[in-house]
């Protein structure tokens, strides 16, 4: 099981802040995971409609879409950051 956490408009479109999921074997990378999530329902499809925009972190470190999700405990998806 891996914990997924969502922030800002990704959270709103997913309709939840976090969830625990069992990843299918077909999900190897962050990009795979985004694609898999997008296929779940309408909200998720909207959240990942433009997957290039959504950023990801594994265990609180920024990662690229090609990064393996192997061994991840917590995976986050969020829009480009707008702090400061």
């Amino acid at each position, binding site marked *: 099981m891996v914990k997924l956490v969502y*922030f800002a408009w990704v959270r709103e479109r997913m309709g939840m802040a976090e969830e625990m999921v069992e990843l299918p074997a077909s999900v190897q990378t962050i990009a795979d995971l985004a694609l898999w999530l997008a296929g779940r329902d309408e909200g998720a499809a909207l959240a990942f409609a433009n997957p290039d925009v959504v950023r990801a972190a594994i265990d*609180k470190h920024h990662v690229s879409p090609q990064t393996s999700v192997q061994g991840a405990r917590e995976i986050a998806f969020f829009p480009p*950051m707008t702090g400061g």
Partner: protein
Amino acid sequence: MREAGRTTRHISVQAAPFDLAAEVEKLTGGRTDIGAVVTFTGLCRDEAGLLSALELEHYPGMAEDEVTRVVDEAEQRWPLQAVGVIHRFGVIRPGEVIVLVVTASAHRVAAFEAASFLMDYLKTRAPFWKKEHPADGSSGGWVEAKALDDLAAERWSAAKRD
């Protein structure tokens, strides 16, 4: 790169406002080796009366970690004697502070450059997101990231390669 001696560091991700003078004093008070202090304070503006508040969402844990990583990098690049970053989250009204960066060094160039670098990197790497609450009570939207902010951050990687 880093000069001998200690770098005083203060990093905080918090809901509460902060006092600029008190924060600078915390970092530099009682020291005689600092020749330059640069501070940057980011405030919430009202967008000509259109905005009643900003709501800052953050990723607890990663926000602190990422700010720390950015501060680590600044310390590697410039000889800093003290560095402080405070970033607030929650509802912030126009006129209130959002973010503070303090850099102290023996000379001004390092302090200026490090403060500028810290802000550019915080904007593009620290996991915070701003939502606008319009003054007319309508439901606001998420602030969009600016391409200019990415460019501002990228110029530091170009500088590193030179």
